[in-house]
């Protein structure tokens, strides 16, 4: 095995544990491939979709229904004559946004909640964790539907400026606001382990405030597992949105998502199989990519296998 010595400039910068993890991740071909794929998907969905030659995803052409893939419509058209390719791009935007924003919300709530609970300990911790347990016991699906309605009603006015995204933003927050439970538990356990370490005592002896110790010294040390879990949460949220849409309580027209495309495609399973297969392919490949990336991150951030 070749061992490469750090170069002068690397030495000067110092290598953080994060940088080490990145170096390990780069060696994982599958994870890197997945990351490129996700990047590509993001570019296609958000940038290519804005280009002028992409058709309006909602433009109907009833004379050209169920057109098979051709030069005009590279992936064909659906039952209303809409271009499938552009519908996949715009649907992808929603699916990705659900994944990322809901995960972001979940991370924010979960880490803050878990960190405070773990650091406070004692009775505060017990009460905070019982709240989490209670929320766990309520069916996720029911809760998201209720929460979505609760958020959507009063926020309708404020969200108008978002245009076509206005009616899906509540969904993002509803999913995120419930997806944090596991993250809170993970973070709490980590914080409880780390707060006993000597460097926390040392930080206290330097006269730092409790908040500063918690969020500057303890929380960064817990981020590894949280990031891994979050990466695996993104596909599960995308999937969750798909099932909500499939049930008719998720995304509403004129928006679409991959879940809706798959649902519509399933109606024409026997005659126009490509309407199901093509969106399904985009959907599952993206989910695979997120899962592989999550696995890769877990290996890269695994403390037991790392140096020192």
């Amino acid at each position, binding site marked *: 095995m070749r061992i490469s010595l750090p170069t002068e400039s690397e030495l000067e910068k110092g290598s953080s544990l994060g940088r080490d993890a990145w170096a390990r991740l780069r060696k994982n071909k599958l994870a890197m491939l997945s990351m490129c794929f996700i990047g590509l998907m993001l570019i296609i969905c958000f940038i290519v979709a804005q280009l002028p030659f992409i058709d309006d995803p909602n433009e109907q052409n009833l004379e050209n229904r169920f057109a098979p893939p051709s030069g005009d419509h590279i992936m064909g058209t659906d039952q209303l004559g809409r271009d499938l390719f552009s519908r996949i791009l715009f649907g992808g935007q929603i699916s990705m946004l659900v994944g990322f924003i809901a995960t972001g919300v979940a991370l924010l709530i979960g880490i803050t909640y878990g960190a405070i609970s773990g650091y406070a300990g004692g009775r505060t911790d017990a009460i905070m964790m019982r709240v989490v347990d209670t929320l766990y016991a309520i069916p996720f699906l029911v809760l998201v539907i209720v929460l979505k309605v609760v958020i959507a009603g009063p926020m309708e006015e404020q969200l108008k400026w978002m245009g076509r995204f206005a009616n899906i933003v509540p969904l993002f927050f509803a999913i995120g606001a419930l997806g944090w439970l596991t993250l809170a538990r993970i973070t709490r356990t980590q914080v409880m382990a780390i707060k006993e370490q*000597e*460097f926390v*005592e040392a930080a206290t*002896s330097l006269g*730092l*405030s409790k908040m500063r110790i918690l969020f500057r010294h303890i929380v960064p040390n817990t981020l590894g597992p949280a990031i891994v879990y979050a990466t695996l949460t993104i596909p599960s949220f995308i999937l969750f949105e798909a099932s909500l849409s499939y049930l008719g309580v998720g995304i509403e027209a004129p928006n679409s998502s991959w879940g809706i495309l798959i649902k519509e495609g399933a109606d024409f399973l026997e005659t126009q199989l490509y309407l199901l297969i093509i969106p399904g392919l985009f959907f599952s490949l993206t989910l695979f990519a997120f899962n592989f990336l999550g696995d890769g991150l877990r290996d890269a951030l695994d403390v037991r296998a790392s140096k020192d």
Partner: protein
Amino acid sequence: MPLLEVKNLKTHFHTRDGIVRAVDGVSFPVEKGKTIGIVGESGSGKSVTCYSLLGLVPMPPGKIEGGSAIFDDTDLLKCHENDLCKIRGKRISMIFQDPMTSLNPYLRISTQITEPLRIHMGMDKKRAKKEAIEALREVGIPEPEKRVNMYPHEFSGGMRQRAMIAMALITKPEILIADEPTTALDVTVQKQILELIKSRQKELGTAVIFITHDLAVISEICDEVNVMYAGKIVERANSRELFSNPLHAYTRSLLQSIPATQLKGEKLFTISGLPPNLAKPIQGCAFRPRNQIGNSDECLTQSTPEFKELDSNHWVQNCPGCLT
């Protein structure tokens, strides 16, 4: 008036097995610029004493049951958390036993060293970093401009302890508490670290509370020595007096069990038995069951021995069995 006056400090831990009296009535003064040593075996309460002063004892299960520690008219044991935050890290700072675990692995050395400057002195990032580089240079870290940007895992044990010392002294504190700062280090590095603490102390005029179980270290660095046993101070004298004229049986036993003081081929003297279980109340003299040097029959069995000044500035627990 001493810089810090600890009086009758009592720190107890309320555990499932009962109340552990880890520190049970400890008093000592810390004079400006002097080094005082606290020596004793594991579990004698020397670390807990210092942790109590800085409010580092985990509560619960720990609880400070009584006493006072007056530092500049403030009682460290009773003052508000916020006031304590202004003192620790600025006027009283601490270095820990294990440099491998006392630095945050996720933060650069520069971030950690500059933290006291930034929160206590309100210094901006750039100036604080300059100070940090200076501080690292003063503790003998080569190429501090480069090293300051590194992470703790890129430092060796000795370098980390140097960095810890730089961090503790960067605000020029009046008191430095050193909790076995050399225990986790190689023998060769130990010596360097001791020299470093000594020289920095001389330059800054800092008083040092030095905790150790290593008598050789004590003799080298301390002006005054407190010997602790079972949560109490059993003997206090200046360093030279203690080593030439130890009075208490425990101190004498400790001195006898230093390998270097004995003849080759002779069996090494050890103190038999274990330190007493502090969860059970101790009646009379705590050292009685292990007292081989003195006369354990004469040890007090009912009343607790009194801490008395027998010679000038030589204090000892007045138990007849331990003094013979």
